[in-house]
Every structure is written in C-alpha cells, then in structure tokens.
C-alpha cells in the first residue's frame, strides 16, 4: 500500500523558464481556437483572434455581434490587423474567408486642402462651399479641348464617353451658375 508520492499527470515541471515561455506563448493565442493567432486581428476592446476564427463567429451570430471574451460590440470594420515582423506565409488565409480588413492609415493633419464642403454646419461654410464648387468644375470642364496628360484616342468608345461626360459636366456647371445668379 505504500505508494510513492510520484504520480503521473498533474505534476508540473517546475522550471520557471518553461512556465514563462508558456505564458508568453499564451499571450498571443487566439481566444477562439487557443492556437497562436494566425492572420491576427485585435478588437477595439483589445482582444486577440485569428481573423478566420473571428470571422466565423461573426457569421454565426450576424444579428448579435459581440466580442467572445468581453461581450463588447464588435464588427468587421472595427478590428485592427496585427502585422508582426517577418510574418511568413505558409498557407493561403483566404480560402473561404474574406481577406482580413486592411489597416487604416490616417494622414497627419495639414491645414491646406479644400475647405470643408459641409452643408448644415453654419451659413459661412455653406456659401463658401457652393461658391467654390462650380469653379472646380469649370477648370476641369473647359480644358477638354486642349491637350491633356493622356486623352483617350479619338473614335474609341472611351473617347465618346469622355466627350459625353464633359458635356454633361458643362451643363451641370451652367445650371449651377444660372442658379447662383437667380438665387
């Protein structure tokens, strides 16, 4: 009856290096398949998934899309892909899954550029926007006779189409001017 203390199973290796490595690995495990995340994406609430896993979950409950971990609202457009260094491609991740959403780059703020063409946020903006708009059209409308960087060759359907579009824009511009004068 005197059995040794040694039992198979639950006894864990006590090497702290192993434990630490394991914990490290776990940090980057997908919360769904429990494997190291492939084509990793992170939700706004900060939870990591493989894109194929998360996509499948979103498809499973299309009407109630929540983060599997914390139940925060989640959606396809609101996940951020993670690009590690030297991510190797072993297999095609897009077999039957749409491509992982792309990262969004926001350009740094610069103060040049077209002033807000925003209706409904103050009279000043509105009149300025409408005033500038037709002139934009003019410049692009009235130089179709001159040489352009790469005009479509005459006689092709594309040429016809451009001619037609130019005329349409011309009419739109003229209507705008009439409206401005009458208003």
């Amino acid at each position, binding site marked *: 009856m005197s059995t040794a203390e040694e039992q198979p199973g639950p006894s864990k290796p006590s090497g702290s290096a192993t434990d630490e490595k394991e914990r490290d690995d776990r940090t980057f495990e997908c919360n769904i*398949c*429990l494997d190291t995340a492939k084509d990793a994406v992170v939700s706004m609430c900060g939870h990591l998934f493989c894109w194929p896993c998360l996509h*499948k979950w979103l498809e499973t409950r299309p009407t109630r899309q929540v983060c599997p971990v914390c139940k925060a609202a989640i959606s396809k457009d609101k996940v951020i892909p993670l690009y590690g260094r030297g991510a190797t491609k072993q297999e095609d991740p897009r077999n039957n899954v749409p491509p992982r959403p792309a990262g969004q780059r926001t350009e740094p703020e610069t103060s040049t550029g077209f002033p807000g063409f925003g209706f409904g946020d103050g009279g000043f903006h509105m009149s300025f926007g409408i005033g500038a708009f037709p002139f934009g059209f003019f410049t692009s409308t009235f130089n179709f006779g001159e040489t352009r960087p790469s005009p479509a060759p005459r006689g092709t359907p594309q040429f016809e189409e451009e001619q037609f579009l130019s005329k349409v824009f011309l009419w739109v511009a003229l209507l705008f001017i009439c409206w401005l004068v009458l208003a």
Partner: protein
Amino acid sequence: MAAMSPSKRRLQRELMSLVREPPPGVFVDGDEVGQNLTQWIVHMEGAKGTLYEGEQFQLQFKFSSKYPFDSPEVTFIGGNIPVHPHVYSNGHICLSILTDDWSPALSVQSVCLSIVSMLSSCKEKKRPPDNSFYVKTCNKNPKKTKWSYHDDSV
C-alpha cells in the same frame, strides 16, 4: 494527427490543460476522454462549506463538429443529480451560457466553474418548480429547450 479538425484540435488542447491544471473540485480522466474527444465525462465535487459538500456529480459534455462556435450539450448524468432550483431531475441545467450567452471564448473549464459556482450559491436544495412537467415533455437535448433565464439570483 495532422488531419485533426479545428474543433478536435481545440478539444485536445482543452483536455491537456484541464488534466494538467484542473480547477478545484473538478476532475477529468484524460485517457477516458482522449478516446473520443466529442464526448466527455467530467467529475465534480460539491465545494466545501456549501449545501453540496461531500457529494459527487458527473457532468456529460457533448460537442458538435461546430464547437467552439456551437455550445456544448451539458447535462448531469449518473445516480446523483444535484437537487438545485436550476437543475432538472433528468440532469438538464438551466444556465444561460449553455445556450444564448455561449461564446467561443468559453471552455469546458469555464463551464465547470460556472456550474460549481451555481451550486455553491444555492440557499435551499429544491427542484425547479416545473420539474415534473418539464421532465415529461422536454427534448432529450437540453439545447432544444427554449429556456427563459429570469431568475439569476438563486
């Protein structure tokens, strides 16, 4: 081994970690389960200082091929079904994470812990009020029941 489906692979991982670090009062026979990963028997012990102290229970988990996107079918089996206001005498459990509130980030371990805590917070051992009617009329699969989770205070 290489051709293991994603659901089997995940179950294999869960089994390994549950055998290695079982939560208190929960026990899984790795060899028994390893034979057929789609059906597990989990042994559970009533926690000390609760109404179920010293009792042994058995939980059966059945996993579909859609696991973990699809919740497991979990029932108490065997001779001792806990007497609890959310546990029917046929072993069916009224617990929202097993149907509506299931999430693929949950696991066998987290389901077991929820059930342990459900038992531990019980104040009075009694069957659900509609037990006899439910047991006579219900489907064999508890997931087919349209549960209404109104009473979470027990």
